[in-house]
């Protein structure tokens, strides 16, 4: 991009660094929308390659909707779209009903995973539908016609649920040790999620507090939460999820750009 620098950052991503290099300009605070109400948050997924302003890329969007089912259990619907380099799109949607307590272990869920080509046409043999449930000790799931059943020891949750867990953990304080199943698909054992109520930054005019995640197969993640209990920013090692009003529109632009480039 003309006029932009490509300097090595030399320091890990943080809210301050993201602000300095201009990536938080479109972040907004949903404070007027009320605490605890059903919410729909759209995040721009941004990847950092260790550079300053240039040499980094948007990857897509993540939309997280939180509400409650008729029994008062947390209901989380997450849709992740990744615009691949050649115009293909990966789209995953999960609908999870979770236990009320922490760490919001999913008890029933469905996941749809699909790919589209650079023309936007779904690729028929690259789709998957998953349905599953867990009674606390055994996870039963079906991927298409393939059934899978496995025992789980100890608490577990899904990475999408951490958008709900992080604010609640900050309210109560403390930490959780659990397994985390990413996208209800890939299990990461020995995860440690910790509230850091005293670790604060100011971003977009508001004070944000931090919840961290570390463990096997991850470099530290930081969930930055505002006063309404909304995750405004997730820094996931060399990626960031930024709460932005036009995150989905930006993803559509990316899809058009990358599809056009391939075509």
């Amino acid at each position, binding site marked *: 991009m003309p006029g932009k620098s490509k300097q*090595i*950052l*030399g*320091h*890990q*991503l943080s809210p301050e660094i993201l602000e300095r290099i201009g990536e938080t300009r479109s972040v907004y605070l949903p404070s007027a929308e009320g605490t605890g109400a059903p919410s729909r948050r759209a995040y721009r*997924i941004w*990847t*950092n*390659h*260790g*550079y300053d302003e240039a040499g980094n*890329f948007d*990857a897509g969007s993540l939309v997280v909707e939180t509400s409650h089912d008729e029994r008062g259990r947390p209901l989380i619907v997450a849709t992740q779209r*990744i*615009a*691949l*380099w*050649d115009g*293909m799109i*990966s789209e*995953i949607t999960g609908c999870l009903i979770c236990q009320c307590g922490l760490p919001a272990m999913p008890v029933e869920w469905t996941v749809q*995973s*699909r*790919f589209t080509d*650079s023309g936007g046409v779904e*690729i028929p*043999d*690259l*789709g*998957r539908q998953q349905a599953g449930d867990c009674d606390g000790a055994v996870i039963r799931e079906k*991927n*298409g016609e*393939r059934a*899978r059943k496995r025992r789980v020891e100890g608490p577990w949750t899904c990475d999408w649920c951490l958008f709900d867990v992080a604010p609640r953990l900050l309210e109560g304080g403390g930490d959780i040790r659990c397994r985390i199943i*990413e*996208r209800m*698909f*890939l*299990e*990461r*054992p*020995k995860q440690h999620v910790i509230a850091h109520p005293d670790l604060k930054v100011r971003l977009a005019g508001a004070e944000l507090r931090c919840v961290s995640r570390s463990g*096997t*197969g*991850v*470099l530290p993640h930081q969930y930055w939460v505002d006063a309404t209990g909304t995750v405004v920013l997730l820094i*996931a*090692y*060399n*990626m960031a999820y930024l709460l932005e009003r036009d995150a989905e529109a930006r993803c559509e632009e990316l899809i058009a750009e990358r599809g056009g480039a*391939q075509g």
Partner: protein
Amino acid sequence: MSEARPNILFVITDQQSADTIALLRKTGVSTPGFDRLARRGVSFGCCYSSNPLCSPARSTMFTGRASCETGVYVNGKGIREGMPTMGEWFREHGDYETLYAGKWHVPACYTQDIPGFRVISTGIGHQGTVSDPVLTEACANWLYGNTGGKPFLMVAGYMQPHDICEWLRLNRDNTGTVDYPEDMPPLPDNYEPIPDDELDMISSMRANQELARGGWDEKHCRYYLWSYLRHIEMVDGEVNRLLDVIEETGQLENTVVVLTSDHGEGCGRHQMTRKNFHYDDVTRVPFLFSSPRRIVENKIDAENPTSHLDIFPTLCGLADLPIPEGVRGCDLTPLLTGRAKRLDRRYVASEVRGNLGQMIRSERYKYLAEAGDGEMLFDMQDDPGEMKNLLKDPAHAEALAEHRGMLKEWIESLDIDPRVPEEARWAFDS
């Protein structure tokens, strides 16, 4: 062959050193996926990248030819026209369904245009944290829906642990300012550079790397090692999930799984990071084969030198296909099936920076030669950390002469692509 051709899952990681698999030796890392492969099959402990740089290494895996022969002597070149590649060969000679997901990099990193393959997923940027999960998703979705018919050759080209390059950029200048974890590994035994007679090329490379430019202290270097192992666990989790799907879909018995990496990572040994030189952590890579009915289980072969050049002919051997003319590697099937213990091979070779930098690895020695720079000789049995250059040691003069002869023999046998410029070619009088 009396039984049906096997499916093949070829997993390529990026920048994974050989000593990163928990079961085989490494502490401080959890790799249930790699461990599962190692338990189920044969792990070659003396496997070398044929060129410790992404594109050249990959070109050799898919052709069985040296990188100066494929014409991919540096990143960003395409494979020489007319040279058969794995996907084309398996389609044509084995009627395989050939699928490619993830990083290709010969020359484009992610592309729909891979000779002989249907591409089922690409990636984004050069980044594993976002691309690798998408890759696993695509491969798994295809496997869940696969109803059989033709055997498949599926390549899963993972990007991790290559994101360590980004980590190095994100942590070059923050020595002493990080909340260091408590469980960081110790420094490697060969953390110090070799005392003397090191190739100038390697010394000058070190001076431009992160340890030197960032003024790292030992603690920060240990943090780098700790972080590298988290990258290893990232990709292990992806591979482990893919192996789950192979089992869930009933394909385990009839699938050959092979895993390697294009090259390793400096890992702070000799105070080096990254790649593109011939010390062992950068050049020696994981090389695992498993298939319950075809390949012996739980075997570590640390004696036979092997290389990327062996992948193509070995997969041909396991699939009962002819091996293309001119392929330089060996079919390792006799070792994998337990029919043989030793290969009829005296050495493997590797090159770097065109073919200006050369490595010859015999069972005991490693010989490095850099055009216009010098030579190094290491006794890998007595000095596996490569800390003592034996070039001037009269006790090893005979070995030195022998390895110079091997290099000459190797160089003279090569059919170098005319696209490789003269200045990137080895010359014995340089």
